[in-house]
C-alpha cells in the first residue's frame, strides 16, 4: 500500500477521493486528507442557498472517511518537505507521502485600499464567511458588494435576502465583464436594478471609511463620491492558494497558480495540483467543472491510467435574483472571422447572441440574458453544425423546443460532470429510466442542475414516459382533465366520465374531478351529484375523526379574533360537549361532533358571524400572521391586515392539495411564512413573495419569487401563482413538488408569473376574480337549503338517534374518543402518501 496525501478538502479534493474510491478497488492507496476548514467538504457552488434555508448539513458532500481514508479537518498543512516527502501540519503532525495532491483552492482577493480590513468588511467563500456576514447584517441597512462578476451578484442577492439595501460596484463599464458583452451587460443591469439592487458600473472603489464606532459606514468611489455602506463584501476575483507550493520551490505561474502539465503533475513528479490552485497552460480556472475534470485525471493517473487534461469549457449559467444569465463557448467572438447573430429585446427583457463560424454553419458560443432556457440545448451544440436557422434558435421557444435528437452522441450534456449524450443513452439502455436514476448512475445533473431539462428530453427521445393516467377510469393526467373540462364546459362528473373515461369512477378520480369542477366555479360542492364525489371530509364539510365523529373549524382570518367571538366558540364547545384545541394554524378546532349535530353547531357559529374554515377541503386553510406594525416594535408593514385580506380573497378556492400561507411583519419571520405554499415577508419597500414552502413529510423552505412588491402587484402575482397551480398540478401534489416538477423549476415559474412568458396572466387573474366574486360561505349555504341539510342525519330511518358505537371518556377535563372496541381488526394498510 502506498501513501497518498491530499491537502485541501474542498470540492475538488473531495471529488478526487470519490474518483479514486471508484477506481482503486484493490486499495493500492491509503489516503490522508488535511483540510483547514472546520468541516468536511461541502458544495461551495450552492453556498448561497445557505441564505435561502439550506443548512451546513444540506450542503455537505458527504463523509468519505473509512478504513483506507483518514480525514483531518480543522488542520492546516504548513510545510512540504520534498526531499523527505513529508507534509507537516499546524498541529505538528508529520505525514509521509508517496504522492501528494495539492487541492488548496483559492482565496478571495481583497484589494489593498485604505480601510479594507475594517470591521464590517467581508469576503464570500466559506460557510464561516456567510455566518460572519449574517452577524454583521444585524442592525445594518445598506450593504455594498465590490465586484460585479458572477460571485458579486450572488453576494448582492444574499445581502438582499438578509434584508439590506444592496449595491454592486463594478470597475468595468458593464456587469460580468468576464462572461458577457456590453449589450448583455446593460440589459442585465436593467433587470437587476428593477429588482431593487443598485448598480454602479465604471466606478472604482478607492477607500472604505469608518464612522466613530469604528465600523464601516461608507465607501469612496473615485475621487469624492460617497456611498453609504454598513457592510462591504469584496468580490473582485480570486487568488490561487499556491503559497505552500511556492515555499516548497514548485513552479508557479506569473499571475499565480501551481503550474501543472496535462497529467496535472507539478514540477515535482510526486506532486499533483488540481482545482482552483492549479495553473494549466497559463489558465487558472475559477469553476468547478475543470477542477472535477482534473480530479478525474489524477485519480486515473494514480491507478496507472493515462488520462490527460487538455483544457476545459468555461460555460456558465447563473440564475440569480430571478435573472438568467448564460455564457458558453467563444462568447466574446474571439475566433477569427466569427459572426454574431444578436436578438436584443429590451421590452421583454431578453438578450441572446450566437457566435458562429465565418461560414455561419458551426456554433462557436453565445450569451443569453433574461431567458436562458435555450442554454441546455445550445451549449452541447458548440462545435457542431447548426440544426436550424440561427435566429430561430434564439427566439423564445426556438431552442427550448429542439429535440435531443438534434445532438450528436459526443455532445457534452452535463458540463459540470463531463457526461456526454452517448453516455446518457447508454445509461438509459441499462435501465435508468428517470432523472434520479440517471443522476445516480452518471452524476449528470448533480452539480449546477442546468442540464436537467436536457436529461428529461433525452429520456423522452428514448421513448420513456411515465404514465400520467389519473386512475383506471381516466387515461388523462389531472392537468389534462382541467383543460378538457375548461374547453368543453363540462359541469358534471358523469358527463366527463362517459365522454372521456370508462366505468363508474373511484375514490381517486371522483374527488379529483370534484375539485377541478369546484376550482372552475362549479357551485356548491354538495349540489346534486357533486356530493357523491367528495372525499371524506368535503362530503360533510368537516373533518372525520377516528371514531366517525367530526371536527369543526371556524375561519379566523389571520388569527385575529374578538373576545365576543371567542366567547361564542367557548359556549358552543361547552353546550355540545366538544373537545377544544388551538391548532397549529392559529385557530380553534372543536372535536367530537356527531354528524347530525353539525348543522346545529354551525347555525350557532354562523349566527355569530363565523364561516367555514375549510379545514376539510383541499383548498386554502389559513393565512397565519404575526402582529406586525399593529403592535410589534420591529414591524415594518401591517402583516395582520394583509393576512386577513389574503385569507378573505382566497378562502374557498379548491386546489389540487391544501394551500397554506402566512405573512410576517419583518425579516424576523414570526409567522413562519417560509414554511408555506405562499409566504409573504415585509420589507422596508413592500413585500417579498416566497413560494413552494411545505411542512409535512418533506419540509422545504419557500423560495423568493419576487421582492419588494407593492400590495397590488403582490396580489396579482399570488392570483396568477395560485390559478396556475390549480390548473397544472397533479392531484394531491403540493406546491413544493409541483414547482420541482416544472420544466425549469422556479425560474420557469417566475417567467410565467412575473414576466408572463406564456401570455396567460390576464386570464389567470380574471379566473381568480371570478372565484372571489362567486365566493359564498359553504356552511351558510347548507343551513339555508333543506335538501343539503337532509344529508346530516345519523340514520335514514332514525335521523336523530345517535350512532350507538360512539362514546367518550374524559382526559384532562375534556371528552376524547373511547378506545375503539377490539374487533380483532386487521392492521390498517399505510395511507397513500401526499405526494
Amino acid at each position, binding site marked *: 500500500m502506498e501513501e497518498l496525501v491530499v491537502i485541501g478538502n474542498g470540492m475538488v479534493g473531495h471529488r478526487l477521493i470519490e474518483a479514486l474510491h471508484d477506481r482503486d478497488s484493490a486499495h493500492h492507496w491509503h489516503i490522508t486528507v488535511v483540510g483547514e476548514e472546520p468541516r468536511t467538504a461541502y458544495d461551495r457552488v450552492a453556498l448561497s442557498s445557505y441564505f435561502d434555508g439550506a443548512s451546513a448539513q444540506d450542503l455537505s458532500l458527504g463523509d468519505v472517511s473509512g478504513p483506507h481514508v483518514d480525514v483531518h479537518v480543522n488542520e492546516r498543512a504548513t510545510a512540504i518537505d520534498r526531499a523527505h516527502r513529508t507534509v507537516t501540519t499546524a498541529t505538528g503532525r508529520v505525514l509521509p507521502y508517496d504522492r501528494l495532491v495539492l487541492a488548496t483552492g483559492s482565496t478571495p482577493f481583497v484589494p489593498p485600499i485604505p480601510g479594507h480590513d475594517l470591521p464590517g468588511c467581508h469576503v464570500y467563500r466559506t460557510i464561516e464567511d456567510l455566518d460572519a456576514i449574517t452577524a454583521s447584517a444585524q442592525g445594518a441597512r445598506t450593504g455594498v458588494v465590490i465586484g460585479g462578476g458572477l460571485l458579486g451578484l450572488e453576494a448582492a442577492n444574499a445581502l438582499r435576502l438578509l434584508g439590506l439595501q444592496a449595491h454592486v460596484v463594478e470597475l468595468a463599464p458593464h456587469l460580468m465583464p468576464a462572461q458577457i458583452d456590453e449589450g448583455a451587460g446593460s440589459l442585465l443591469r436593467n433587470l437587476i436594478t428593477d429588482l431593487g439592487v443598485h448598480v454602479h458600473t465604471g466606478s472604482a472603489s478607492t477607500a472604505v471609511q469608518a464612522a466613530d464606532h469604528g465600523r464601516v459606514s461608507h465607501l469612496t468611489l473615485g475621487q469624492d463620491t460617497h456611498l453609504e455602506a454598513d457592510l462591504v463584501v469584496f468580490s473582485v476575483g480570486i487568488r490561487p492558494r499556491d503559497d505552500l507550493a511556492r515555499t516548497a520551490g514548485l513552479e508557479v505561474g506569473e499571475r499565480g497558480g501551481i503550474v501543472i502539465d496535462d497529467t496535472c503533475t507539478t514540477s515535482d513528479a510526486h506532486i499533483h495540483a488540481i482545482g482552483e490552485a492549479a495553473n494549466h497552460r497559463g489558465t487558472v480556472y475559477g469553476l468547478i467543472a475543470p477542477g472535477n475534470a482534473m480530479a478525474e485525471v489524477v485519480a486515473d493517473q494514480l491507478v496507472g491510467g493515462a488520462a490527460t487534461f487538455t483544457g476545459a469549457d468555461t460555460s456558465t449559467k447563473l440564475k440569480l435574483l430571478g435573472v438568467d444569465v448564460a455564457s458558453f463557448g467563444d462568447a466574446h467572438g474571439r475566433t477569427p472571422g466569427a459572426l454574431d447573430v444578436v436578438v436584443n429585446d429590451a421590452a421583454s427583457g431578453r438578450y441572446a447572441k450566437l457566435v458562429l463560424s465565418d461560414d455561419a454553419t458551426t456554433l462557436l458560443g453565445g450569451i443569453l440574458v433574461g431567458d436562458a432556457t435555450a442554454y441546455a440545448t445550445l451549449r452541447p451544440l458548440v462545435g457542431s453544425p447548426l440544426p436550424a436557422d440561427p435566429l430561430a434558435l434564439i427566439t423564445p421557444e426556438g431552442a427550448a423546443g429542439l429535440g435531443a435528437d438534434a445532438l450528436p452522441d459526443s455532445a457534452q450534456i452535463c458540463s459540470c460532470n463531463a457526461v456526454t449524450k452517448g453516455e446518457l443513452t447508454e445509461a438509459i439502455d441499462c435501465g435508468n429510466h428517470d432523472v434520479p436514476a440517471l443522476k445516480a448512475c452518471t452524476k449528470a445533473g448533480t452539480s449546477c442542475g442546468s442540464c436537467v431539462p436536457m436529461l428529461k428530453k433525452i429520456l423522452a427521445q428514448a421513448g420513456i414516459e411515465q404514465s400520467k393516467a389519473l386512475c383506471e377510469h381516466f387515461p388523462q393526467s389531472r392537468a389534462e382533465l382541467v383543460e378538457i373540462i375548461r374547453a368543453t364546459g363540462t359541469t358534471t362528473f358523469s358527463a366527463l366520465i362517459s365522454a372521456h373515461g370508462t366505468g363508474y369512477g*373511484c375514490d381517486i378520480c371522483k374527488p379529483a374531478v370534484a375539485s377541478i369542477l369546484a376550482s372552475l366555479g362549479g357551485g356548491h360542492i354538495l349540489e346534486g351529484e357533486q356530493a357523491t364525489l367528495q*372525499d371524506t371530509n368535503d362530503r360533510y364539510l368537516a373533518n372525520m375523526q377516528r371514531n366517525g365523529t367530526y371536527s369543526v373549524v371556524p375561519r379566523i382570518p389571520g388569527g385575529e379574533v374578538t373576545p365576543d367571538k371567542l366567547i361564542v366558540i367557548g359556549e358552543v364547545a361547552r353546550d355540545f360537549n366538544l373537545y377544544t384545541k388551538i391548532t397549529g394554524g392559529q385557530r380553534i378546532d372543536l372535536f367530537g361532533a356527531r354528524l347530525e349535530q353539525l348543522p346545529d353547531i354551525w347555525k350557532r357559529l354562523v349566527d355569530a358571524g363565523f364561516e367555514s374554515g375549510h379545514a376539510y377541503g383541499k383548498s386554502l386553510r389559513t393565512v397565519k400572521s404575526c402582529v406586525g406594525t399593529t403592535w410589534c416594535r420591529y414591524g415594518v408593514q401591517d402583516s395582520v391586515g394583509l393576512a386577513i385580506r389574503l385569507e378573505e380573497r382566497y378562502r374557498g378556492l379548491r386546489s389540487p392539495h391544501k394551500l397554506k400561507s402566512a405573512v410576517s411583519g419583518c425579516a424576523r419571520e414570526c409567522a413562519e411564512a417560509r414554511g408555506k405554499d405562499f409566504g409573504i415577508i415585509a420589507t422596508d419597500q413592500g413585500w417579498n413573495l416566497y413560494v413552494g414552502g411545505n411542512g409535512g413529510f418533506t419540509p422545504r423552505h419557500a423560495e423568493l419569487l419576487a421582492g419588494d412588491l407593492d400590495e397590488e402587484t403582490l396580489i396579482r402575482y399570488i392570483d396568477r401563482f395560485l390559478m396556475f397551480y390549480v390548473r397544472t398540478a397533479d392531484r394531491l401534489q403540493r406546491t413544493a413538488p409541483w414547482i420541482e416538477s416544472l420544466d425549469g423549476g422556479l425560474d420557469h415559474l417566475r417567467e410565467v408569473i412575473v414576466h408572463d412568458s406564456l401570455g396567460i396572466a390576464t386570464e389567470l387573474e380574471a379566473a381568480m376574480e371570478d372565484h372571489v366574486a362567486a365566493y359564498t360561505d359553504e356552511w351558510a349555504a347548507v343551513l339555508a337549503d333543506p335538501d343539503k341539510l337532509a344529508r346530516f342525519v345519523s340514520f335514514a330511518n332514525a335521523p336523530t338517534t345517535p*350512532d350507538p358505537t360512539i362514546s367518550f371518556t374524559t382526559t384532562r377535563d375534556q371528552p376524547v374518543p373511547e378506545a375503539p372496541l377490539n374487533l380483532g381488526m386487521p392492521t390498517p394498510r399505510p395511507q397513500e402518501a401526499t405526494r
Partner: protein
Amino acid sequence: MSTTTQTRPTTWTDACSIDRLHPEDGVAILLPDGTQVALFLTRDEHLYAVDNIDPYTGAAVISRGIVGDRSGEPTIASPMLKNVFSLRTGHSLDEDGVHLDTWPVRRDGATVQIATRAEENTP
C-alpha cells in the same frame, strides 16, 4: 329495477323510502337489533346493503364512502382509511380475509327493504 339474489327466506324490514336514496350516495340504516347497515343505490340502479362498520377502525362510517368500480366490480371505499370493498360480495379488494357482511335488499313499491338476517360468508 332489480334485487340481489335472496339466498334463504327471511324477514324483510323497511329501511327507507326510495326517494331518500340518491345514486352513489349512501345512507346508514339502524336495524331493530342495533346493527348498522350501509345502503347504496348505484347509477345502474342496483341496490346494495353492507356492514356500516369499517373493519379496520371500528367506526360506523361505510355509508359515507365513495361508490365506484374496479375493473367493473362495484365498490365502496371506506372514508376512514380508503380501503376498498366489493359492494356485491363485501370482500376487501386489497386484502384477503377482510370483508363486510352483506344483506339482501329489495324494493317494495316506494320502500326499500332489507332482509334482517345477515348472509354469512357470501361467495
